[in-house]
């Protein structure tokens, strides 16, 4: 083999495992150093035998003249079969592509390199990487081809599995997008429903309230005190129902409301909230000194505080009392606490109070719809936080919630 040949062989060597490439290079060197050595023939034979890739050689017409054992192993063909027609082992679906590439390589003298399937005699199908280069003589005439065949079934299987996963992932993503779109639509429907329901439900209520008032007015002295009281009860129920409808509407709006994120001085926010609640002056509200300034949805945080503070006052057993608001920084987020010195809540009710429309007292004794705490919980959870209550009967209650800026 001439120097040119060993140079032509270089691209092929680069694609082989390093140790094998080194071995082949050494052999080629041996060829050059001892062109007639017996030793070299033996070395080539050994090399061909231990090679993890199949090796073949073909003449200028593409007729196979040599294959090593590994080649026979991979293709499942004998040398005789290979000499007949080596291409018969190529999988029918890949045959055309392989032949086209081979023809192109022989015409352009460029290295051949194709990944394709081999249909073996035992009917198993494997993936191979076939490579070949052109051998030329001193006159630059093609004398033949030498090449390798590598079993890449394992890699191909991983690739195919990966492709399958990718397809699966794409499918799941599509489903997710569709579900999101559906959810958005459902939310819009719910919004519309809430509006219609609140509008259409409130109209008859208003009529009932008006009619009872007119009855009372028209009958005036004719109406016994008891009936007059019943008329008042009737209107009280009407107003409660209206409050329920309004609360429901408010509850359904949370999470769909686009609240703006802005820097919020919590101390100032609390002052504003407390002022707007117009609490009885007999109640003392103590705000901790270390209130932070954070970037958050001002409207929502204010709504949470307003509900918790007004709840503490509304459900207080006395007409005087104290509500304390404190805060603890916990790394990335804050934990706020609203404590009162009221009656406290028995532990068995701690979960129940956050459920919509649940109140612990008879509805007539307090102006309460049972929506406030469920609104608070929904806001906090929508914003990624959580709320807990810490209370014993007779020892006041502390509502603690986490808030992520």
């Amino acid at each position, binding site marked *: 083999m001439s120097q040119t040949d060993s140079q032509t062989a270089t691209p092929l060597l680069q694609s082989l495992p390093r140790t094998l490439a080194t071995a082949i290079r050494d052999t080629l060197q041996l060829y050059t150093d001892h062109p007639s050595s017996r030793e070299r023939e033996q070395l080539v034979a050994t090399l061909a035998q231990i090679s993890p890739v199949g090796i073949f050689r073909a003449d200028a017409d593409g007729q196979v003249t040599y294959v090593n054992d590994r080649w026979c192993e991979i293709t499942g063909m004998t040398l005789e079969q290979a000499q007949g027609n080596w291409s018969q082992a190529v999988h029918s679906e890949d045959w055309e592509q392989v032949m086209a590439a081979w023809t192109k390589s022989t015409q352009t003298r460029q290295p051949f390199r194709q990944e394709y399937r081999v249909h073996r005699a035992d009917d198993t199908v494997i993936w191979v990487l076939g490579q070949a280069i052109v051998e030329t003589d001193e006159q630059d005439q093609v004398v033949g081809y030498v090449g390798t065949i590598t079993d890449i079934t394992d890699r191909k299987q991983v690739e195919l599995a990966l492709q399958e996963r990718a397809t699966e992932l794409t499918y799941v993503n599509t489903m997710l997008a569709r579900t999101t779109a559906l959810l958005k639509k459902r939310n819009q429907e719910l919004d519309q429903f809430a*509006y219609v329901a609140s*509008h259409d439900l*409130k*109209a008859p209520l*208003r*009529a009932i*309230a*008006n*009619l009872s*008032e*007119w009855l009372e007015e028209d009958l005036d002295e004719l109406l016994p005190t008891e009936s007059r009281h019943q008329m008042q009860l009737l209107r009280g129920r009407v107003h409660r129902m*209206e409050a329920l409808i309004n609360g429901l509407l408010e509850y359904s709006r949370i999470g769909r409301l686009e609240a703006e994120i802005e820097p919020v001085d919590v101390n100032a926010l609390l002052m504003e909230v407390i002022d707007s609640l117009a609490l009885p002056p007999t109640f003392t509200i103590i705000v901790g000194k270390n209130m932070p300034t954070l970037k958050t949805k001002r409207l929502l945080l204010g709504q949470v505080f307003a509900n918790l503070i007004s709840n503490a006052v509304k459900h207080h057993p006395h007409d005087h009392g104290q509500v304390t608001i404190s805060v603890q920084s916990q790394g990335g987020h804050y934990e706020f606490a609203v404590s009162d010195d009221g009656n406290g809540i028995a532990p068995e009710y701690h979960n129940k109070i956050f459920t919509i429309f649940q109140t612990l007292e008879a509805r007539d004794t307090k102006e309460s719809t049972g929506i406030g705490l469920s609104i608070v919980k929904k806001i906090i959870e929508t914003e990624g936080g959580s709320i807990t209550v810490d209370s014993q009967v007779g020892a006041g209650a502390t509502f603690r919630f986490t808030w992520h800026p």
Partner: protein
Amino acid sequence: MEKPVINILLLEDDAVDVMNVQRAFKKNHIVHPLYIAQNGVEALAMLRGQDSEPPIVPSDRRLILLDLNMPRMGGIEFLRELRADPHLQSIPVVVLTTSNQDQDRVEAYHLNVAGYLLKPVTFQSFAELMATLNKYWALCEML
């Protein structure tokens, strides 16, 4: 001198809401004649007159109080018909509704309403609203 009457046409399908207006008139001693139509079709007939009969609502000094949610022909649809009729297009219309939807409000003003009022929840507030309305229209020079 006696104040001239205003011929008021109320478009309202809810009987209690009609009573609401009537009682508010009574409470404020408003004596203008009040004509009632339950939907837009009925109202147009009362304004135009049928079979060469004169219209039920006298054709001068007219004012329309309009509810938006009505069967057969809703308030906005009625307004469109009204503004398209050369004989009726100049009648002032005050919308009286429970609908606070932006779309209704915008459409109503596009059709040149003289006012857009939300029905108050309590009768007391409603009666006050009617009194204010009466005072305002008493000041207006009408066609």
